[in-house]
C-alpha cells in the first residue's frame, strides 16, 4: 500500500513537471518590468535598443503592438512556457497610459488547463519574495505603537505586541509587496525609475466552451507626480542584478 502511494505521488509529480516548464520565468519577469518602465518613461529609442539586445520581435495587428521573444539559441524546448506581450494604450490615472498584457502559452497554444495556469502562477511567484515595502519599516520613519521592535539588521525586524509578546511579526524588506490599498491586493514592485511602482495583476480566464483557461498578467506603472525630477530607469544596472532584492530601491 505504501509503495502504491509512493508510486502515485511520483507519477503525479512527474506529470506536473512535464506539463509546465518555464525556465526563463525570472528573466522574463525582469524584462517585462524593463519594457513597462521604458514605456512609462516614453523612451522609445531605448525600448527599441532593448528589444534588439534581448531578441524581441515585434508585430502590429489591429492597432495593437505585440512583442515576442525570438529564441536565437534554440534553447527553448517543446512544452516550455513562452510569453506574448501586448502593449496597450489607454491606462487612466493613477496608472500610466501604456501598460502590458502578457499571455502565457505552450507550443503556441494559449489555452491551458487550470493546473497548468496554477503552475505558471506558482513558478512566477517563486521568482520573487513578497515582503514589506522599505518605507514601512520602523527605521524609515513609520511609527509603530504598542509593540516592541527588535532590529536584526537594516532590512529585517521583529515586532512583538507589548500585551502579547509571543505573537511575533517578522518584517523583511522587499521590493515586492502586496498593496493593501488597491482592490484585489495586487503584488507591486517598488523599483527604480520615474514611477511610484509597478503593479502585477494576474488572471486566469476560463475559456467559454471547453474546460480550458487562459493565464495572463497585466503590468502597469503607477504614475509619479514631478517625475521630471526623478532619475530615469537604469536598464543596464537593473538587468545586471541577479536577484530582485539585491538592491532595495526605496532605500535611497
Amino acid at each position, binding site marked *: 500500500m505504501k509503495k502504491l502511494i509512493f508510486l502515485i505521488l511520483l507519477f503525479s509529480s512527474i506529470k506536473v513537471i512535464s506539463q509546465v516548464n518555464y525556465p526563463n520565468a525570472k528573466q522574463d519577469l525582469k524584462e517585462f518590468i524593463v519594457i513597462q518602465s521604458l514605456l512609462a518613461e*516614453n523612451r*522609445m529609442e531605448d*525600448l527599441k535598443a532593448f528589444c534588439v539586445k534581448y531578441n524581441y520581435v*515585434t508585430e502590429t495587428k489591429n492597432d*495593437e503592438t505585440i512583442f515576442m521573444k525570438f529564441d536565437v539559441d534554440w534553447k527553448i524546448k517543446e512544452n516550455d512556457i513562452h510569453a506574448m506581450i501586448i*502593449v496597450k*494604450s489607454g491606462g487612466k*490615472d493613477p496608472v500610466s*497610459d*501604456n501598460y502590458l498584457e502578457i499571455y502565457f502559452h505552450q507550443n503556441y497554444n494559449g489555452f491551458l488547463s487550470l493546473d497548468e495556469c496554477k503552475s505558471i502562477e506558482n513558478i512566477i511567484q517563486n521568482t520573487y519574495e513578497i515582503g514589506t515595502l522599505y518605507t514601512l519599516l520602523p527605521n524609515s520613519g513609520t511609527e509603530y505603537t504598542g509593540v516592541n521592535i527588535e532590529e536584526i539588521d537594516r532590512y529585517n525586524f521583529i515586532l512583538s505586541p507589548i500585551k502579547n509578546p509571543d505573537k511575533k511579526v517578522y518584517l523583511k524588506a522587499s521590493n515586492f509587496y502586496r498593496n493593501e490599498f488597491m482592490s484585489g491586493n495586487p503584488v507591486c514592485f517598488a523599483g527604480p525609475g520615474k514611477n511610484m511602482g509597478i503593479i502585477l495583476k494576474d488572471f486566469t480566464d476560463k475559456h467559454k466552451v471547453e474546460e480550458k483557461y487562459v493565464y495572463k498578467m497585466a503590468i502597469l506603472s503607477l504614475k509619479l507626480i514631478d517625475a521630471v525630477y526623478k532619475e530615469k530607469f537604469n536598464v543596464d544596472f537593473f538587468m545586471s542584478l541577479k536577484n530582485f532584492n539585491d538592491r532595495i530601491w526605496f532605500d535611497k
Partner: protein
Amino acid sequence: MKNLFYLFTFYSSIVFAQTAKDFLINDNDKIYHTSITEVIAESKNYGYNLFRNNKGEYFFNDGMSNIIILNKNIDNPYDEGFPDYSVGHIYKKYFFTGDDLTKTTIWKVETEIYLTSYGNVSVSQINNCYKKIKNDFVKKLLNDNYKIIEVSNKLNYKSILANYYDLIEENLIRKPNVNDTENYYINQRIYSIGEYNKYEINNNNYHLTFSIKDKGMAGLQEGINDMATSTNKSFDNIRFTIGGQDMRKINLYDLEAMVKFFLEDCKKSNKKVPELNTLKATFEPLQGNLIALSYALGDDSSIIIKVDPEKWANASIEKKWYVLYHELGHDVLNLEHGQGGKMMFNFADKEYSWDDFFKDKEYMMNFK
C-alpha cells in the same frame, strides 16, 4: 634561381589569370569572398573607381545591407568585348555583411552597363554585344556545375541607376552533386538578367543589368529587413498612440480633438493638466506668416488658439501637429520662446518630419 623563376611565373599566373571580361561577368566567384578591400584592389587592374557621394563617402547601407559601388567609363585598353568606339559606363554594386572591409561576406553582386548608340556604334552592335555578355555570364555558371532549377520573371525591377526594368528573368540555380545539407544550401544562387532600352530624346542609352546572389544569405538579409520594417511599424504604433487614440487618425480640422490629444500627451508625460473653464480653438485668418497663435499664456484655466485656415490647409500633417504643440506649449505649459527647446522656437522654420516632432516634443515635455 630556377625555383624563384617558377614561383614568379606561378604567382603572375594567379594575379593575371583574370581579364577585364572575367572581372565583368565572373561575379559568382565573389560570393562569400571575405575581403571587399581585395575586390577594390583587383578592380583597379581593369580601370574601375570606387564610387563616392558628394560628401566623399564610399561605404553605404541601404537599410538591409552594406554596399560599395565600383564604376568605370567604357574605353580602351580594357577589352570587355564592347564594340569599338563604344561610349558608356559600367557600375558594379557589392552587397556584404560586416563593417570591417577586410572581413566581410559578399552575398550579392549587381552589375549595370549602359552603352550609347551613335554614328560609330549602332543599336544592333549593342544588342549583339549584350547578347554575348548574357550568354557568357550564364555559360560561366553552368560550367561551374550549376543547374537551373526554377525560372521566374520579376516585374518593375529598380536597378543601381534607379532605372525601372519592365521585366527581368530570375533563375534559381543549384549544384546538384552536393550531398550534405550544409553545402546544399550554400550552393544555391539566384541570378537575374534584364535589358532596358527605352528610347529617350537625346539619350540613346541602352541598359543591361545582371546580378547574382546567394539564396540563403539573401533570404536572411530580406528576413532581417522585414523584421526591421515590422519593428519600426510597431514602435511607430506605440509612439503615435496615446489614450488608445492614434494621432494620425485624428481629423486635422477638428482642432478641439487635437487639443484634447495634446492634453492626454501631457498626462502621459506626467505634466499637470489644469482644470479648464475655456477651450476655444478656432479657424480665423491671421496676419503675416502666422499659422496659429495662442492667447492664454499664463491663464491656466483657458486654452484659446486661433489658426489661419489657408496656411493650415497648405501645411503638412507633421507641420500642423508641430505648430499646434508649439502654441499649446504657450497656453498649457506656459512656456515662452527660448524655453522648452526647438519646439518653442519663435517660428516654424522648415518642413518637419515625424522624427523632428517626436524628438522636439520629448524635450519640451521633459523641460524643467
